């Protein structure tokens, strides 16, 4: 049980931060493109300010992701033994083809601000963005296979990959990828609009900066609010029958499972429906906000002045997060009692490790991540509040009197 809660907490916090990472990377890349092509100073400052928030947010995504990769082996030994032959392949591709380049180039982008040709520097953020999406795709291929196993054969109780194409084009992976892609953009759009609204509400002197940021945020919201629901809805064609406990299909499938695997509670827990309902409700509120935004978007001065609207946008920042988490609960809780649907039950997927060790590691990681998420959320808010002048990312190196501090030591 603790293994499950631990993995859920790690994956959940990873997912929350990664959603903003994906969307914000894209918007930062767009802003840097405008800054580079037109030489516009305001866009260069926007790149640095929003880029700084992106980097703060990225740090949590990366460490939770690292831990998660190892947790597959640490906590879910039963799953790697049974499904590792298939499940491992997309994870390997994620690390080698996508994450390796993403991380290497992100370091180059952060630290190489004044050392690289500006076009080369622009190319870096685009590579970082695209490999981040590639990364998300491979992770969802792995997850999609757990939801709907395809392209494998069972030999001696272990799954073998037989059809890579089927695994890579699994609709539960591809549709979920686009759903998450637009979900990430929606998160970043609301985040940007909300932070901009905060500054405009406080009558900032940086009117042009935040009016433009607000417009990019709102435009992103308007453009992604429909695709996100389309790709979400399309997934229902492939949803597991037992996810909808009231239906005839669910009863039939549960009867089939009982015949094959013995009695168990094969219908999805009640939390699943709550997840779906919460996600849909959050989306309905988001589309209403998007409609207001659509009316206001053509009028720049109205965006700067409407104080009620500013409050609305600030309040709307958590909406995509709520929807993301609720959707994730719907997807993952709804698959229970299975880890690999119809193949491996969650209780059989666990590692063969003593409960004492599991408890210790659970307490240690939970405490560490709680501190981490707390500190990073605080920093995100702090840097968002301080505005563009406090952005140190890409700023010229601070001139510090290095010599006197060094001299006396010898």
């Amino acid at each position, binding site marked *: 049980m603790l293994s499950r809660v631990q993995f859920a907490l790690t994956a959940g916090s990873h997912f929350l931060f990664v959603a903003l990472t994906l969307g914000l990377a894209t918007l930062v890349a767009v802003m840097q493109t405008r800054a580079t092509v037109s030489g516009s100073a305001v866009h260069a400052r926007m790149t640095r300010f929003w880029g700084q928030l992106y980097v703060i947010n990225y740090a949590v995504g990366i460490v939770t992701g690292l831990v998660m990769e*190892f947790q597959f082996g*640490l906590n879910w030994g039963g799953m790697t033994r049974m499904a*590792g032959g298939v499940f491992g392949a997309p994870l*390997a591709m994620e*690390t*080698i083809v996508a994450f390796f380049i993403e991380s*290497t180039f992100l370091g180059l982008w952060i630290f190489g601000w004044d050392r690289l040709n500006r076009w080369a520097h622009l190319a870096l953020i685009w590579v970082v963005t695209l490999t981040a999406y590639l990364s998300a795709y491979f992770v969802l291929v792995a997850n999609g296979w757990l939801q709907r196993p395809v392209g494998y054969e069972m030999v001696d109780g272990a799954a073998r990959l037989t059809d890579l194409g089927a695994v890579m084009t699994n609709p539960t992976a591809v549709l979920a990828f686009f759903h998450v892609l637009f979900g990430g953009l929606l998160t970043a759009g609301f985040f940007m609009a909300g932070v901009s609204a905060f500054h405009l509400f406080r009558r900032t002197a940086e009117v042009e900066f935040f009016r433009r940021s607000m417009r990019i945020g709102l435009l992103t919201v308007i453009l992604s609010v429909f695709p996100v629901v389309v790709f979400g809805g399309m997934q229902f064609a492939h949803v597991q029958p037992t996810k909808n406990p009231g239906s005839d299909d669910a009863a039939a499938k549960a009867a089939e499972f009982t015949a094959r695997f013995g009695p168990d509670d094969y219908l999805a827990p009640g939390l699943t429906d709550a997840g779906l309902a919460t996600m849909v409700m959050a989306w309905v509120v988001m589309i209403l906000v998007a409609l207001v935004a659509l009316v206001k978007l053509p009028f720049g001065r109205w965006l700067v002045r409407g104080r009620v609207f500013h409050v609305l946008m600030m309040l709307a920042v958590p909406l995509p997060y709520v929807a993301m988490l609720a959707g994730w609960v719907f997807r993952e809780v709804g698959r229970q009692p299975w880890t690999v649907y119809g193949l491996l039950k969650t209780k059989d997927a666990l590692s063969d490790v003593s409960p004492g060790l599991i408890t210790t590691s659970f307490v240690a990681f939970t405490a560490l991540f709680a501190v981490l998420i707390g500190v990073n959320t605080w920093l995100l808010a702090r*840097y968002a509040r301080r505005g563009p002048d406090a952005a*140190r990312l890409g700023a010229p190196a*601070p001139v510090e009197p290095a010599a006197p501090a060094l001299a006396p030591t010898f």
Partner: protein
Amino acid sequence: MEILAIVMLAVFAGAYLVLAGADIGVGMLLPVLGRSQQERRVVIAAIAPFFLGNEVWLVSTAGIVAGAFPGLEHHLLEGLFPLFVVLLLGWVVRDMGLWLRGRVDAAAWRRMCDAAIVAGSWALALAWASVLGSLLAGGEGLNVGSVAGLPLAALFAVHGVGLARWRLTGALSARADRFPAPYPLTGAALVTVALVAGTRLPWADAAGAGAGLTVTAVTTAVVLPVLVAAQALVWWTFRGRVDSPSYL
């Protein structure tokens, strides 16, 4: 195909130990290399552009294990569970220290982050030393080597000094120069230890059957030149010695 996958695994694990081993070593000796907070920031600047690119070698190593050697994943992670938990905790604490140090301008905050970097680096190095020791001693799970291997952590520290000698300048570099630490030699030592430890692993039943092994091995081999080029670009960009703080 299994041979190709093993070679790839050796390349990635070796690259991790040589590259990240040095920045872990610098983290372990942070208070020795940098006496004041300002000096320590310069020491961190010596590894800052690289640590992200260094640790991905380990992430990819884990990816190759997951894709090509699911049997090994279980042998290592479940068998050495406590060591890998310490390793991960140390890794997270250290990275957070590095990321967060420059975010708040207060002496107490920097002290806390320095402590996190040092403690995390030591935890990481000791966990690796213990993992390598356990494998060298052979057998499954924790054994006498888990303790006997701990002194191997010193190798990381000396390797870090080698990097500091080569990256820093002025008084900081002179301070590092007092330790005789030849970077290529300590790097080679780390790789040798890892390779010998690798020969003790149960390869016979480790490899995955079916296309998973092939896909992972071939993809890795094909992409490797691109990855090396990307890393070379980073090293080329930041090839100069460091005498002032960077973003972190």
